[in-house]
C-alpha cells in the first residue's frame, strides 16, 4: 500500500506528474482510498493521463484473461498425494 503523508492526502488535487508516479499501483488497487479518489478525479479531467491509464488497463485485462486452465486430474492427483502424506486412509 502506498503511504501518503497527511499534507499530501489533504491536497485538493493531484497533478499529472504525481499520477504518473503511482499510476500502476493505482491500477493494482494499491493506493489508499482517499488518494485513489483524487487520482480518479484527475483521470476524468485529464485526457492524457486518462489515455495512459486506459492503455495499461487494456494490457492488464488482456493478461488477466491468460490464466491457463488447470488440469483437474493434476489437482486430484496432488490432493491424493497430500492425503497419502498425512496418512488419511480414506483418501490414499
Amino acid at each position, binding site marked *: 500500500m502506498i503511504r501518503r503523508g497527511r499534507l499530501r492526502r489533504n491536497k485538493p488535487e493531484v497533478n499529472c506528474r504525481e499520477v504518473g508516479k503511482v499510476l*500502476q499501483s493505482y491500477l493494482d488497487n494499491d493506493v489508499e482510498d482517499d488518494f485513489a479518489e483524487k487520482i480518479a478525479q484527475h483521470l476524468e479531467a485529464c485526457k492524457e493521463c486518462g*489515455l495512459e491509464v486506459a492503455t495499461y488497463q487494456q*494490457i492488464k485485462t*488482456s*493478461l488477466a*484473461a491468460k490464466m491457463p486452465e488447470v488440469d483437474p486430474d*493434476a489437482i486430484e*492427483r496432488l*490432493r491424493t498425494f*497430500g492425503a497419502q502424506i498425512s496418512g488419511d486412509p480414506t483418501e490414499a
Partner: protein
Amino acid sequence: MFEHAGDAMRIEFIVEKTLERFGPAGPMEPSHAPETLRFPRSFPRCDPLPLTALIVSRRMSEPVVDDKAQKEAFDRYVVPEIEVLYRVARSITRNPTDAEDLVQDTMLRAYRAILRFDGRHPRAWLLTIMRNAQINRVRRKRPELLRDPDAAMERLADEDSADLGPEAIVVESQYDAAVEKAVDALPEKFRSVVELVDIQGLSYAEAAEIMGVPTGTVMSRLHRARTRIRKHLESSGAYVNGRPT
C-alpha cells in the same frame, strides 16, 4: 495450531540440546532424549510437554511428534492451497509434469515443517517453501547455477529466447496475441513477475515470497515489465489504447 502451545519451540530446543550432548552422527534412541530440561523463561507458558510422544530420529533433525496435530495442520494450511501452488508451479516450471513434481516436493517439505509453522500467512509460507524447492531442483539439473544463480538464470532466459529475433516479432492482428508475444519477449525476471501478478493474480507480497525478493522489487519489476510490454506493442504496431500506434 498445536495441542500444547509451545511444543514445537520446546522440541527444537530439546533437539538442539541433544545435538550438543551427543553430536549429529551418533545413534539416538528415544530413551536418550533428555526427559527434563530447563526451558528458557522466554518460552510460552504451556502444559507439560508430552515427552513420551517425542521420538528423536537418528537424523536428529526430524523430531516425530503428534501425528494427529501434524495431519490437522497440514489439512488446514496446505490442502486448501494446492490449486494455487499448482498454478504458480506451472508458471515457474513451464511444464505440467515438473509443476506436479514441484508441488509434491513442496507438500512434503511443508508436512515436515508444519509443526514449526506459526499459522500466519500460509500461502506466503508455502510459496517460500516452493521457491526453495525450485532452487534446489534447478541446481540439481544445472550445477553451474550454484556459483551465480541470478546471472545463470538470466543466461538461461537468453538461451530460451535466442531464436526470437526482431523479425519474429511481427505485427499481430489480435491484440491479445501481441500481448502474449510481448510477455514472451520479456527477460525472465520481468516475465515471471507479470505471470505471477497479472496472470495468476498473486498479490505483490505473495509474488515477493515466491521470487525471494522484497515487495518493492516486485512492484518495480512489474511496472518496468508493463512499460516494456507497452513499448513492444507500440513498436509492433499493435492496437494500443483503442487506437493504432
